[in-house]
């Protein structure tokens, strides 16, 4: 088992690991210091920009047109963070009939005492049981051709992760 770990264990770390910073400009050997050394910055790093936590970030591919209206097209890649708490309006990857689907989460509350932070839809995503106060939960498309998917049992809904970015070829 350990050998397998050694063989492949490093692969997950390739993504989003920033290169060692700074110090390069300081190491110039000559007496003529670089005039830029006080302004040295790391080069722009997409991984750092797009990924908050490498352990909870996954990339998935969209299949279909239901989210066209949200700027998410067929074939696009979505960056999904499984650690994020889904809220009303989040674009989520949810489990429906054993499949992963992408939709916008809509939570409507019945009364004023409701805490909007308390999502009833966090079965897989949070430790708190999410004592549901939601009157209605639905997964809605961003295209009128696809009717909203009602969620009669919000506690049974599994939110796989929350989409944070869409990679779309222009």
């Amino acid at each position: 088992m350990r050998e397998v770990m050694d063989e492949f264990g490093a692969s997950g770390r390739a993504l989003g690991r920033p290169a060692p910073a700074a110090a390069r400009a300081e190491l110039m050997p000559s007496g003529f210091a670089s005039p830029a050394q006080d302004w040295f910055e790391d080069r722009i790093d997409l991984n750092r920009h797009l990924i908050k936590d490498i352990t909870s970030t996954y990339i998935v591919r969209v299949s279909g047109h239901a989210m066209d209206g949200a700027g998410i097209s067929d074939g696009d890649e979505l960056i999904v963070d499984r650690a994020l708490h889904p809220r009303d309006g989040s674009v989520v990857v949810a489990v429906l009939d054993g499949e992963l689907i992408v939709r916008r989460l809509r939570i409507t509350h019945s009364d004023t005492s409701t805490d909007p932070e308390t999502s009833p839809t966090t079965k897989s995503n949070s430790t708190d049981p999410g004592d549901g106060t939601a009157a209605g939960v639905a997964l809605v498309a961003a295209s009128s051709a696809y009717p909203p998917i009602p969620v009669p049992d919000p506690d049974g809904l599994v939110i796989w992760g929350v989409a944070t970015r869409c990679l779309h070829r222009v």
Partner: protein
Amino acid sequence: MAWSSGVWPPGASTVSDPEPSPLGRGPVTGPVTSGVALVDVNNFYVSSERAFDPSLEGRPLVVLSNNDGCVITRSAEAKVLGIPMGAPWFQIAGQAKNWGLQVRSSNYELYGDMSARVMEVLGRHTTDLEIYSIDEAFLTLHGTHRAQQATGRTIKATVRRNTGLPVCVGIAPTKTLAKLANRWAKGNPHFDGVCHWDLVPQDQRRALLRRLKVTDVWGVGTRNAARLNAIGIDTAWDLAAADPVLIRKRFSVVLMRTVLELQGTPCITSSESTGNEQVLFSRSFATPVTTLDGMQQALSVYAQGAASRLARKNLQGRVLTAFAGTSPFSTGTRSAPSICIPLPAHTANPLELTRAAHRLLPLIDEGVSYIRAGVIITDLQPAGTQDSLLTLDQDPAAGAGPALGKDTGPLLHQIGQRFGRSAIGLGHAGLKAGSDWTMKRDMLSPHYTTKWADLPLVKAQ
């Protein structure tokens, strides 16, 4: 299974036991101290498959070993079906459909990445992470027992949230007890996946130790168990109560440490338990190898695989063992040749290792169907401790061949890392077009997290 019998919840029985306890530790909550947590993923391969394919949830699922040989991981549902661990696939394949059994080949690319994610999460909760295998690690935890348990719960929740994988956590004063606590946490739902040894009432800990055989204790093999039984040590409780000095005299210092650990004294250090004792590179062939050429090629690949691992760990080895074997199910000629080659000096040089591995070839019978081969490197030391005196350029046996010095290994390793593992190889192993003996994985799931072409699909339909 002894693990699941009901000795929990606490308070169910707190009658004080008049017997003296072999366990050195009494207090139920205890002062600020440090403990060892063993965290491991439940049914790791199965859980990794399910993390990306929710349709597998709740269905019987098994993952097969290299070459789809036999069952190496079973979901709870597959265990209920009575599929034994290690069952050869060909024996159960016929019934798979009737059972509704889902089957996957080992997706090491996926498991490796999921493992790295888990280990990174674990590393955020401790100053001292010791990765023990692909799916388990020891962590040092500080604070009161309650605080340690709380950290255990946080770890379990965070790994679940970030990776979708379920883990169990066992916390105890020693690694050996942490192992027990971990399995207890798995077997008894009342723990909810996290068991702190010191927070379980003492009488229940005793009851557990009395139920467990010595072989249930980490590090006690069957050979020692037989000898222990012969002197009346049958259960984990007996072993915990044994005299450590006597155990050292009659057995070994290793077993004495186990006794001390059972008594609550930590004495298995990380270098001992992770042990860089050997590097093993071995595979079963998809189709049997029956020719000397085929075996030579296989040994080349495995020797270079081992060299690559040595380079990655920054180690060099002094002894190489090469072996091959026929199938235990074979009705034809059986053969299991092996040879042990002391190397002239510590080395991680792939060409030296390959040449040594080839010395197995005279023992190979042409025409016999070999189904596996492998290379083991032992007597390891950190590279650079002592410069290799005999590099290839100086080896007279290398003759006028191309000069491949001691930089060759790291260079090949770098190229392999950059362009893929089959991009470069020495001599017989320099091959990309798959030989017919490369690993068979007919029921492989996508490499969801390591390959753009294999990303999980989410439906917008």
